[in-house]
Structures are given as C-alpha cells and as structure tokens.
C-alpha cells in the first residue's frame, strides 16, 4: 500500500492529530530521560551543572523536534529519506576533514550550542533510506544479488566514514541497524547466514593479523578486546574501567546504595560516569531494582514501537518504526552488555540517559518518525 491509497478520512488532521499520538511512548521516553537527569544530577555531586541543565535543554529541543516530526505525515518523511541520508553523508565527510577532536577521535561539528555528531544522524537516516528502499523494491526482487548489493553499499559508506573517525561503537550499531532492516524487509536467510559466516572469518583474520604489518584494527582496539576477555589482567591500566564499573554495579546490590550515595561513582572510581558508564552509577545507587526498571522501560518503548509497526499496513512506516526500535535496542543492549562485562568497551552511550546532545536529539527525532507512523497509519 502506498501513501496515495491512504484515505484522508481515516487519517487525523490538524489538532486532532494530538489525540492520535502514541502517548504512552511519550510518557515512557520522558520517564527514561527523567531517570537520566536524576543520575546526571547525582554524578555532578548534587548539582544541575555541568550536565543536567544542558541535557534538559536538549531534551526539550528534542521533544519539540519529535512533535514537529510526528505532526508531519509519514509519507513526507519517506520522500525526503534520500535527502536526509545525503545530508548526513555530507556532514560525515565534513568531520572527516574539518571535525573537532574529542577523546582522540574526530566526531563533532561544533555548532556552539551543541556539538553535532553526524554519525548519530547517519544512523537514523540510514534506517529511513533503507525503509524507503524496501518500500520501493518489489518483494520478488529483494533477494536478488544486485538489489542486495545496493543496501549493503548504502550501509557500508557511512560505516566506513564512521570507522575512520574512529568510532567503532557507532559503526557497529549502524551495521546492526542496517542489517536488521534488511532482515525485516525479507531478504533471504542465506545472505545473513553467509554474512555471519564471513563475520566469524573476519574476526579470525583480525586476530591473525595481530602484530603483523597488515594489522586490521588499531592497537587500542586490540587492547580493549584483550581486556574484555580478561579485565583483571590489567586492573590499573585499561582494564580499570571495566573492573571499577563492575564493582560499582555489584556494590549496588538489590536495592542500591541510595541516591547520591554510590561511593564508586561519587568518588570518581567509575570513569566516564556521565556518559558511557552512566548505567553503573544508576545501578550502584538504585540497585538491581533500578537497573531492571530501566531495562523494563526500554523494553516497553521497544514494544510500543513494534506495536506501531505491526498496526500500520504501510511498509515504509512499518520498517522505519521497527528500524528505530532495533537501533534503540542496540544502543542500550550494547551499552549495558559493555558495562556489565559481556561486551568490549566500544563507546556506545546509554540512550536518553547518557549525557550527550546528538544522541538525544537524533533519538527523539526518530521517535517522532514512529509517532508520525502511528498518527498517520491507514485505518
């Protein structure tokens, strides 16, 4: 079904659109963000500065963006998907040459009020473009090698540019997100099986390349993998992050050590406790109860996105909603697995909670797409 077949009668217009919002999703997103503000306030030692205030501003900005995106019909977004992707690519190329350096990697465009991370943008525009692509592509052709190659290239171009920054975490999320859309669209199983096989082969090759002239990844990335495999090997060096994060998490216990009482976080044993490792602070201060609650909230957000996707009979809307849900899922799953010692430290923020403007803005805009799909679904 294409947008031309929507009957305007079944689609709300004007202010009536607010009635058709997916309000539970708005409430859930706001709750998670509020959780984030609380933790940021605690990490700052009980202060609105330096993190809560800017984060709050970006959240409001993001909510406004979400509402604007939501009120615009989903078919409009489908039509500008290619343009959005192109803009994101250009910005990625821009940081490649002129970007600000942070943490040893070129990732930002400094706009003054916000440091824009084009790789975050690329993640969501990639989802949009792939959804539009599969909306356009007849199902009988989608497993044709040529039509499989096109989305693979569309994925790998931004992934390559992101890897060059280097930002391994975002690149992985992009690949997983893009691959998920292809899977959802119905590309043949065999492709995924062979990619997984290829992936295993590549990992083996990467390890085999270690110490040789053709070493495939950076030394620091190798070190991260080593430390992931055995954090205790270097408890005062690079393994320190993981070790201290797990101590913080474990020390939280069932009910936590109390708000602003987490010694590991308050005394700075946990590094990056306002960004990538913020979950440890949350888990230390609010315990298993707090951590599991956040996980539940995240899963509810996913559930509402999936529900929207299943309700709409529009292929683009459905794929975008699922793509947003999967991207969002990969965010928190990789982050949590990372701080809990189940995955290497790759630098992925905890969505809606970690301090950081780009991810917040991009995610809220993405939820705007889901809302738009929800409001403008054919009835």
């Amino acid at each position, binding site marked *: 079904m294409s947008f031309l077949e929507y009957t305007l009668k079944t689609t709300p217009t004007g202010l009536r659109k607010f009635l058709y919002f997916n309000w539970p999703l708005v409430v859930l997103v706001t709750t998670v963000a509020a959780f984030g503000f609380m933790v940021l306030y605690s990490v700052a030692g009980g202060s609105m500065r330096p993190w809560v205030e800017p984060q709050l501003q970006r959240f409001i900005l993001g909510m406004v963006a979400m509402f604007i995106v939501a009120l615009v019909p989903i078919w409009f977004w489908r039509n500008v998907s290619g343009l959005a992707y192109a803009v994101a690519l250009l910005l990625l190329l821009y940081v490649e040459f002129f970007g600000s350096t942070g943490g040893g990697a070129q990732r930002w465009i400094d706009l003054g009020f916000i440091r824009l991370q084009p790789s975050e943008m690329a993640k969501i525009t990639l989802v949009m473009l792939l959804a539009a692509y599969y909306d356009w592509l007849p199902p009988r052709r989608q497993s044709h090698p040529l039509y499989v190659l096109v989305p693979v290239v569309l994925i790998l171009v931004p992934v390559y540019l992101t890897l060059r920054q280097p930002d391994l975490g975002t690149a992985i999320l992009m690949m997983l997100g893009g691959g*998920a859309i292809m899977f959802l669209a119905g590309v043949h199983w065999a492709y995924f099986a062979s990619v997984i096989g290829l992936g295993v082969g590549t990992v083996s090759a990467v390890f085999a390349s270690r110490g040789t002239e053709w070493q495939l990844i950076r030394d620091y990335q190798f070190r991260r993998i080593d430390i992931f495999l055995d954090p205790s090997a270097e408890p005062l060096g690079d393994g320190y992050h993981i070790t201290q994060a797990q101590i913080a998490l474990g020390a939280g216990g069932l009910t936590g050590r109390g708000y602003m009482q987490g010694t590991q976080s308050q005394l700075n044993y946990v590094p990056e406790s306002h960004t990538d490792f913020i979950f440890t602070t949350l888990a230390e201060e609010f315990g298993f109860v707090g951590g599991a609650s956040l996980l539940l909230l995240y899963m509810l957000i996913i559930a509402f996105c999936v529900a929207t996707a299943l309700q709409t009979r529009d292929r683009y809307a459905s794929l975008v909603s699922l793509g947003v849900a999967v991207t969002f899922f990969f965010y928190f799953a990789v982050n949590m697995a990372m701080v809990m010692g189940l995955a290497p430290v790759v630098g992925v923020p905890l969505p809606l909670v970690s301090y950081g403007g780009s991810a917040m803005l991009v995610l809220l805009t993405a939820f705007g797409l889901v809302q738009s799909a929800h409001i403008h679904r054919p009835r």
Partner: protein
Amino acid sequence: MKRSQKETEEEATQVTRRGLILGGLMGTTAGVLALRMRYLQVERASDFRMLAEDNRISDRLIPPDRGLIFDRHGTLLAGNEQNYRITMIREDVDDVDAVLHRLSQIVLLDPARLARVRDEIMNTPAFVPVTIADRLSWEELSAVAVNAPALPGITPEFGLSRVYPLGPDFVHVVGYVRDVPDSYAERSGDPDPVLRIPDFQVGLLNVEEGLEQALRGRAGIKRVEVNARGRVMRELDRTEPTPGSDLQLTIDAGLQNYTEARLNGESAGAVVMDCRSGEILALASAPSFDPNIFVRPLSAATYNGLLNDPYRPLANKATQGLYPPGSTYKMIVALAALEQGLVTPDETVYCGGYTELGNRRFHCWRRGGHGRLSLEQALEQSCDVYFYDLAQRVGIEAMSAMARRLGCGVQHDLPLSSVAAGLAPTMAWKRANRGADWLIGDTLNASIGQGFVLASPLQLAVMTARIASGRALVPQVVKTVDGIDHITDAAPPLDIAREHLDIVRSGMNRVINAARGTAHGIRVESEEYRMAGKSGTSQVRNITAAERAAGVTSNEDLPWERRDHALFVAFGPVASPRYACSVVVEHGSGGSSVAGPIARDLLLRAQVGDVPPLTLYPSSQRQRIDEMHENMNLLPLARPAPSSGGSSQA
C-alpha cells in the same frame, strides 16, 4: 514500482513475521542482560560491596608526639617544637614559577633547593602538597600569611619536630632522632607501620635509640574516604595517637654541662655517678657535636668533617672508649690480694726502681725507686714495683675476677648505643684470642693496668663507686618513665670485706691528701668536700730498652697521638662517699696533672651543686681556677631547688 495486491499482502506478513522474530531475539537479549544484572547485583553483591569499600576507605596513620626527655631536675633535654613550613598544592596555582618567584622575595630560599622543589611539584599529583621550605621562623611564616592573596596554592603548615635545646652537651647520653633509614624495619625487626609515615623520625643514638619504643608512642588512625585519585574527601573515624612516654634521666643538666665545658679542648671522656644509687649524673665525651644537625638533612661535608676529626667527636668515649686503665687498676690488685690473705696492711715491699723477672726488667715509674712501702703507701705513691710483687702472688685469674666484680671487663646494661665490655684478661682468653700461653710478665703488666687490660671511663666510675660504697651499684641513666620509677632495687652489698675496702679507700685518700700522694696538688681545702682518688697514666707505646737507656722522652716532645693517656678516678666526700667519678683524657700525658684536676672539679661541682667557690681550692691555684671558670661557656640553666632548706642565695 507498482506491485500487486498479493505482493503487498506478502510484504506485510513478511514484516510481521520477521518483526516478531526480531522482537523475540530482543526480548531474549534483554533477558540475558537482566540475568547478568541479577548475577552481579544480587548473587555477588557482597563481594563487590567489599571491593567498593576497599576502594573508598583508606586508613591513614597519625604520628604520635614523641616523649620528652628531661634531666633529673626537670630541665628539658629533648623536646618537640612547632615546625613551621610552607607547602604548595599545584592544582590551586595557575603559574607555579611566578608564585615561587614571589615567594622567594618574601622568604629566603636557596636557588638549588628551589629548583629541586619545582621538579617535585611538577612530578607529584596536583592535589598533593609539596613542602617548599622547612623550619621557618615565625616572622617568615607571618610574612607568607600576610601575602597570601599573592601566593595562591601556598599554605603555611605546622608540625612537630625534635629539638635538643641544650645542643651538643647531651648528645652522648640523649642521642638524636633521624629520618627512618631504609633498612631500619628489617634491621630492628620492628613492624610498626608508623615507620612508613613520611618524615617520621626514629631514635638512632643513645637514649633516643635505647628507649625508642617507650618514647615513640602509638600511632593514631584516621579512617578517611578517598576518591579515585587518592584525595581525601572526608574523615570517617579517628583514633587519637598515644603520645610517647616522657623520660626523666638521672643526668644533672648543670653538672653535665659543666663536665662538657671542663673537658672542652681535650679528647676525653668522664663519668660522674651517685655512690648511693648508681645513677649517672654526668656522662660526657669531648669533643661533642650538635644533635640538631642530625635531625635535619645532613650535608656530606658536615658529616665527613665529624667523621675525620682526629678527636673523634662521634665516638662516645665515656662508654665506648677503651683504655689501659694504668694505675687506677691497682685497687683491684690490692683487693684481690687482701681477699686471698696474701698481704697485710703492715707488710712492706722494697722498691728499688724495678723488678727483675728472668732477664727482663719491669720498671717503676719512679726510676730511683720508692724504698720500703706498705700497701697504703704503695697506692699513695702509685709504686709499680709493689704491685708487681703482689701480682705475682695473686695471679691473673683472681685479679680479673676481682675486676669483674668491680664492674671492669663486663658490659653494663645501659640504654646507650655503644657500651663496650672492656677486657679483664684471663689465661683462657689469651690462649683463645692470641694463641699463646699466659706469661708471668703479662700478669705484671696487668697489675699496673697495662698490657691486655682495657676499661672504659664508665667501668672505672662503676669500679670507684663500688669501692666507695661497698655495694654492687648498677649504673643507671633513666630515672623515671612517665613518672614511674625506672630504678627498682637498691644495689646489694659487694661481697668484699669492709676492712679490705677501708684499706684501699685509705690508700686512695692518701693519694690526694697525704703530702707524698701523687695527686696532692688537687687536694681540697675544706674538710667537708675532701676527696679520695687514684691517678693513672697509661702508655700507648712500648718503651724500648734503648729508649730507656737514652732517657725516657718526655711527653711534651712526642706527637699528640703517642702521648700517654691521663686517667683519674675519685670519690668524695671521703667521710661518707656520695659521688664517684672517672676521667680519661686521651693522650693527656699525666694522670695527676691533667685528669686529676678535672676529676676534682667535677666532684666539687657535684657536691656543691653549682660552680665551686674558690675558697675550696688551695690559695695558690685560685686565680687560675677563677680564670678557667670565667672562660667556661656554661649554659644559663635554672638552678634546681635545693633539696632541703639550704641557702638558695649562694
């Protein structure tokens, strides 16, 4: 692209089916995450809680205040003074160099030290204070405080550091503290964690070392919360340190000061003891050195200067210096002979200037001989031939046994760093150590305190005090620890017949108070303070037959280090002995002429309780004594209150 209705339906079911598969995968992953969370936070929570506490809590030691050391009358000998210093915390400073420059205009800072301090500041964590200058005056500290706005990051601080207010006079008793040496913990087997506190100091000499455990006290502990960088965030708990015990020594500060002043210019050791209790009132070794220089970082030049000084200021000659006791040993020979019944007071021996043994001649110090002498006369005139004769009858074993009973050749237990055992030789000793049999000539040499015999001034003082008191006095330097008496038992009587001791004391009395006594020159004009003693002049070289034939070279013509040692032991008052003393002047040439006057002055000073009045001296000597006292550099010590209503105006 156009597509059929069927295709559209297929697409929708495809998305739905795969969406549900993906949803299931996501749910499963979330479940794994939840399980991992549960494992870390519920099952292993207590392990991690403990690790977190280990991170957070750090126990820091608080150094205890070291115990104070006083003399017997309460004069402070070792105290703790406020040490003013200034420190810099780098993270509070924008421009370290500018601040250091400004600081150097306020406080005098050595440029070399400043450069070192600058390196240290740059190489320590930004929040750790680094000491820039130590031991500032109050004025300098105030100047820094006044200029505080121009000196960001600079903090004035206070701490305690050891100080010896009376300087060099007491170092050979009190000792000093220094920074803990690297090997200290292993060497002393002392596991006290307080030793690891930066800048902590331990006693490394004499009483400071010997009573280190009592003086040190116990460290307090403050439990602090530290952040990941080690900075203290707050104090959680605090156990106050237990200060070290205060010590009261038996030393009389005034007498000790007088003794050091009296020995000034010589290389000498002297000990003054109380004949009733064994308490040591003065224990001096000259030259001395200022213990305060050891508390601070000591320059190699200063240390080498002390080390290479031919008068050996670092050595404690009173306890560590071993000398042939010379004629001061004759009392031992006499007592051994009397005890064995080998001699009676009336028995006389003829001295013709030498004794012939085989084909070897043993000379008397008086070449012409003394004629016929009784025991008391032999002591009075220090006749060597008499004692050669006696020694042959007594034998070395009985002689040395008597020496040990009187405190020679045994190591006295004092909390001082070097207390030498000396040597009262026996036949077995010579065989073991020299690989030769004992010769009768060795006995003869021993009888006049030469040959193998060695004794320290401390041992000679103990010997004299035991002869004077008739009791087996044990030397003491610590009177009380934290106000509790350290000296427990009164000394038991010496197992020596009273009449024998009387004979020897009488002989010693005659040394000074009989007209022909070797030390008649040091007699005291007042009956009240009259003393008895014995001189000794011990050779540090052998006089060859050729030399003797050419006429004995006088000491004045010899280089200093080959001159005879001058010794004197004395006690007083004669009527009821109260104080005993010994004096050894290294290479001082004459016992009676050099060591004797010192012994007299020390005993008088001890008895009078102040610089002795001139009336006590023979009128011919008064002017010289007066000049000597004028030139003595005595400390302005508060005079102790007289023990019983005596005149305090004298």
